[in-house]
Each structure stands twice: as C-alpha cells, then as structure tokens.
C-alpha cells in the first residue's frame, strides 16, 4: 500500500548497512570519541524514538482510514467537521512533548558553549583551501603549521586507485593529547569556512576578521577526520581536517620534535605570519 513500503525498505536498508562488509556502509553518526559527541548521539536517539512513535500513531490513523473508510467498500461519510476539545488537546499535548524534548537538550547546549578552563588553546585559520593551525596556549604553545589535503591529484581524476582515506588525509595533522580540554579558536583569512570533526561533535564557522571558539575533549586515542562545512569556493570539498589524538607522553614528544624543526627553520617564537607568507611556506613543503 501507499507509503507503507517505506518502513520495510528502511528496515531492509538498515539491515544492509549493518551487514556491510569490510568497507561498512556508513549510515549513522560516526563512533563518538568524546563525551559531547556521545551526548549528541543520545539526544538524537531520544528525539528519533519520540518522532517514530508519533509518526506511526498519526499515520496509523491515516492508513486505517484509507483502508476502512473507502467509498469502494460502501463506507458513507459522516458529517462531523469540528471539535474544539480535540483541537485544544492536539495543540497542548504536542507543546508538552516539545518541553519534554527541550529540557535535556538545554543542558547540552549550554555545555557545548562553555569554552572556559581549557588545557590547550589552538587557533584554526581557514584559507582557500587549506587550514592553518597555531597552538596559542598550553603545552605546545608556539607550534604553527599549515595543513593541506594530501590525496594525490591522480586519485581524484581516476587514473590511480583511491586510497583508504581518500579526500580525508593531510600533510600535517593537528595533534592533541587524550583527555585534555582543547579550545579551538576559529578565524579565516578570506571567506567563511567551517571546522568540523564529527567524532568529537565539534563544528565552528570560521569568519574572516572575527574570532569564534568551540571546544572538545577527546576521550580516545586515534585519528579523527572531518571536512570544511561551509561553501568557500572551488575547492571547498578538498580541505579536510585530521586530528590525531595521542597519549600525554607521545604528545610531549611530538611537541619537542615540532619545536626543534621550527627552530631549524629560523622561526621566532610568537610570530604570526601573513597569509601570503604562510601559503608560500605551505606550498614550498
């Protein structure tokens, strides 16, 4: 019957996805790597179940009417066409349901905005079409580099087989220690970009000439990938973000290596270079 097909199709597709092979068919949020991403997933499921129940209820009525109140089986139309009590009920009850949804959500909204007391502050600058990272405060302060997509052109053009992290790999990854609160300050050098790592549930637009901030606390060691999520021109789809979360020890080691390398390149501490110079450096790499 009409529309009823959607539910078995959905179930079938879900089954397909769950049984997906070595390259699983991604169909849901990426595995959360932070408490915030976990909370977001829970909120989403909470709302989805509520919606599914309401949806089945309402369209249960509709499909029942399609079946039992057909003219072709001789059903005659009744005359009623208004009922104030029912109107009040189906105005108030959805309003109450909305409050029930908004209540747990509000806490998460406020928490997501609380960027205070961060362990490490990293400034992220969006460029057309790459990201710049500047470690501003905390361990690693002074480290700065540009991060550009490293997927080879011939993979994109189809003359070479695509690697596992096609379009989600970069030359210089942002490295952070596990368990620490990382505050990300975003800005941009040209147009609006947006910095996003799905596994952390952190997304923040990067506005040229302005600072914005967000935060994440990675709870797992691993490599997490995201993409620019605001149309920023031709290569908007080709400026990924990669964050590597390591143990505290490995992080200190990485910091040491970065500082040695930058001393060798003659950088002065605390220096901020203009976009032109950074891009030239990045391209020279």
């Amino acid at each position, binding site marked *: 019957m009409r529309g009823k097909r959607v539910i078995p199709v959905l179930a079938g597709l879900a089954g397909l996805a769950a049984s997906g092979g070595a390259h699983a068919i*991604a169909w849901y949020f990426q595995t959360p790597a932070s408490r915030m991403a976990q909370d977001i997933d829970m909120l989403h499921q909470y709302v989805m179940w509520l919606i599914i129940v309401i949806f089945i209820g309402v369209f249960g009525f509709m499909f029942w009417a399609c079946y039992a*109140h057909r003219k072709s089986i001789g059903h005659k139309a009744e005359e009623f066409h208004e009922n104030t009590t029912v109107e009040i009920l189906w105005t108030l009850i959805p309003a109450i349901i909305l409050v029930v949804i908004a209540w747990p959500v509000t806490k998460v909204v406020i928490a997501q905005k609380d960027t205070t007391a961060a362990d490490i502050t990293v400034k992220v600058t969006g460029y057309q079409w790459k990201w710049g990272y500047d470690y501003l405060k905390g361990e690693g302060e002074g480290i700065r580099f540009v991060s550009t997509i490293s997927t080879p052109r011939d993979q994109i053009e189809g003359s070479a087989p695509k690697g596992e992290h096609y379009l989600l790999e970069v030359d210089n990854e942002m490295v952070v220690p596990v368990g620490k609160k990382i505050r990300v300050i975003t800005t941009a050098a040209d147009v609006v970009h947006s910095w996003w790592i799905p596994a952390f549930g952190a997304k923040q637009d990067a506005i040229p000439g302005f600072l914005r901030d967000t935060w994440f606390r990675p709870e797992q060691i691993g490599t997490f990938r995201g993409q620019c999520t605001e149309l920023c021109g031709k290569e908007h*789809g080709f400026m990924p973000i990669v964050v590597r979360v390591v143990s505290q020890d490995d992080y200190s080691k990485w910091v040491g290596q970065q500082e040695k390398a930058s001393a060798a390149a003659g950088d002065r501490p605390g220096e901020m270079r203009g976009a032109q110079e950074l891009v030239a450096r990045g391209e020279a790499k």
Partner: protein
Amino acid sequence: MSAVIDSHGHAHGHDHHHGPRGGIMRWVTTTNHKDIGTLYLWFSFIMFSIGGLMAVGIRLELFSPGLQFIDPDFFNQLTTMHGLIMVFGAIMPVFVGFANWQIPMMIGAPDMAFARLNNWSFWLLPFAATLLVLSFFMPGGAPGVGWTMYAPLTVQMGIGMDLTIFAVHILGMSSILGSINIITTILNMRAPGMTLMRMPLFVWTWLITAYLLVATMPVLAGAVTMTLTDRHFGTTFFNAAGGGDPVLYQHIFWFFGHPEVYIIALPGFGVISQVIPAFSRKPLFGYASMVYATSAIAIISFIVWAHHMYTVGMPVTGQLFFMYATMLVAVPTGVKVFNWVATMWKGSLSFETPMLFALGFLFMFTLGGFTGLVLSIVPVDIQLHDTYYVVAHFHYVMVAGALFAAFSGIYFWIPKWTGRMYDEKLGQIHFWLTLVFFNMIFFVQHFLGLAGMPRRIPDYALMFETWNAISSIGAFGMGLAQLLFLYIVVKCIRSGEPAPQQPWEGADSLEWTHLPTPAPYHTFETPPVLK
C-alpha cells in the same frame, strides 16, 4: 486550453462577448487571470525542467567518488543555479499560477483587482530567468556561491554574480506586485455573503502568503543590494576591514529565507485543504483552527531565522531562543496535519490521482517536518548543519511537500481549466514513479548526512559511495517520470475525454458548484448570490 472557446456561460443579456485575440499577442497583452495563470504554470514547468536538468548533472557527478564529468567550479555553479531556479523559477511561480486561476473563481470575482499589473508581474519572470541562465555564459560563469549567496564569497565572483543579483531583484518585484494584487483582490472583491471565514482555505493560505511575501522580499533585495555595493561601490557591509561583518549578511538573508520557505509551503497546504475534503466527501475538519494555525505558522516564521546559523558563534542565549521558537512552529503545523487526517477519518474515500498526491504530501511533508524538528535541536544541528541531512530535509518538505501539492492541484483542477479529463491510469503511474524515485533520491541522503557528508561538494570520501550511487539512480528515474507528466498534460489538453460538469463528487467550492466545466473565459461578471 479551453479558455480559447468563449462558451457564453453567464446567463444574462449583456452583449460584450468577444473571445481573446489570437496568436502571440494574446499571451503578451492578456489581462485575463486565467490566461495569466496558464502562463505562470507553463513558465514554472519550463524552469522546473531546466532546474531538473541541473540536478541530473549534479547527481551524475556524484554517482561515484572522483571527478568524472564536471569540474568543481562548474559544480558549484550548478548547485547554485539549481537552487535559485527551482525556488524562484519553479515552485513559487507554480503556486502563483494556481492563485491566478483559482482565487477569483473561488471568491466569486470576475478577475484580479489589478489586471494589467497582473500581466506585468508575470512578464517580469521570463526576463529574470533569462538573466539567471545567461550568467552561465559570462566570463567566470554563473556564481558558485549556493542559492544562499553568503558573503564574502560573493564578492569574489565574476559578472555572473551581478546578473544573478539583478535577476533576484526582478523576481522579488514580480512577487511583491503579485502579492499586492492578491491581497487587494481577496480583501475587496469577495462576492456578497462570502465572509473571510467562509472562504476556501486555499484562498486563506494565499492571503497569508501574500503578506509574507510583501514583508520579506524587500529584505532579500536589501541583502543582495548590499552585496552588489560591497562588490562594486566600496561599501564594507560584510567586510570586517571596514567595520562590517559577514554574519550580518546571514542574518539579513535568513530573515527573508525562513519566511520564504513558508511562502513555498503555505499555498501547498491550501491546495491539500481543497483536495482532501473533496476526495473524502467530507468537509475540512476544523476550518477555523486551520486558519489560526496557518496564521500562527506565518507569524512564528519571523522569529526563527537563526536556526540556519547555529554554528556561526552566536551566544548561547541566542541559540536557545531560536531553538525554542523553532520547536514551537511544530505545534501549529501538527495541528494542520491532525486536521487533515481527521478530515479523512470516517469519510468516504476514493483515490484518484489528486488524492494520491495529497496523501503522498501528507505522509512525506510530515516526515520532512520531523527531520526539521531534529535539526532544530542545537547540539544535533551542530553535527548535521551543512550536511546532506539538511539537503534531505528541505527536499522532503519542498519537493515531496510543495511539489506534490502542486501536482495534486494540477490533476484536480485541470478538468475545470480545460474541460477535459487526464488519463487516470497514466496519472497513477506518474504518482507511483515519482513517489518511489523521490524516496530513492532523498531518503538515503539522511544517512549521508548522519554519516558526515558535507553539502556542496563535487567529490566525497569512499564511505559515502553506496548511498550516493542509489541517490543518483533515483534522480535519473525521477527525471524521466516527469516527462510522463508532460505527456499526460499535453495529451489531456489535446485529446482528453470531455470532463463531466462535476468531475469530483466531493468538491464544493464556487468554481465547482457555480461554474461550468470548462470555466468560461470570463466568469462571475455578476457576482454569485451565496446563501
């Protein structure tokens, strides 16, 4: 078009019968609301086809990972123009076509209040559409900025951007003039006895939509004009260097943009509110509630705009306010859905093509509305903003919503307009093909968004491959299904079965009860007497 035949349908002795003049000039100079309605409908179908071709181009490139057919710059141009053409060239004009054909007949008026203005409102559109399409052929091509045209990316574009800005101005002017016409007609020209609370709900939804248009189109004009001056005249509205702010553009645009989506949806609600009672053979349930709910939706639509901007970095109080206000709009929308279902409940239902599309609308607009509720939740939106989840959401409400309502209305009213019936069997096939292929395109896009695929990218990571392939196959199917629709309409006009005077048993608005089928060129030159 049977309006060519001036069947002298009015029963008194006035002798001013003259048919419309023939040829091209008839269509250029007509001030007849039926002719102008027809012009809008055909124009919107042409734009729908052009926008649809662009969509097919987009889905062709997205069929598999890698860049195969279209370079990234042209891809951005296609996504931008697909959006602008569909929103301003297809879905808005189709409902203006309905407004023109139906409003005078439904309120017992002989024509629109400003008949000549009506003609100009239409003829602005082909010029604007030409400007839009012409931008592809300019140096630099069409702008690749998304239909939302955010600054400061727009400042980087070539002359195609300026053509687009002028096109948007002209489109806005057409909408504003048309809305003034609609408001004046509805408020001043109802037949005696037709109080506001006796009007068909379709007329109510257009009255409310017209006010929304008058209020918001100038805001869009402001936003694109500021973009124009930032581009060429040294202003810095959206540039921090001069004290401006790119986010200002977003606020101005979305202050227009949110009421805009209700401008698209509300007339569709109106069509459905005519079709469902007709095919349930039962009056619309809760008429007064429907009027209040539609008004509530329109008013609330002005205070929710920043739910499109949760990630720009607004203070948490702002996020909370806009979240609560956006969730609130679910209440009157839910009231409308419940009322439609209650109309069907214990009716005497039949499922001809208009009813099929109306039921498809009901089911899938509600689904889209629910994903809108999911998106209104700020932390969830942080994950889903600018991903394919949003693309899925708005296509459900605008295509499975508004477009299905438009199809429903066309099948419903085409006998009144032409005097001929469409082929019922083919109509049902069109419905099922459209339904299946539509869901194939867009249902899987929810998964893409959840899994993390951003919008407006011509190439994607390997984990998104499967759903993209399915979605693209759906796009080809849906495109072909609309060719069937064209065939059905042309066949109906040329050689359809003559329609009975009352093709739809349960239809009870004035055009069905008081006018012949087909409706004569001039109707209600004397207002009807309503009991």
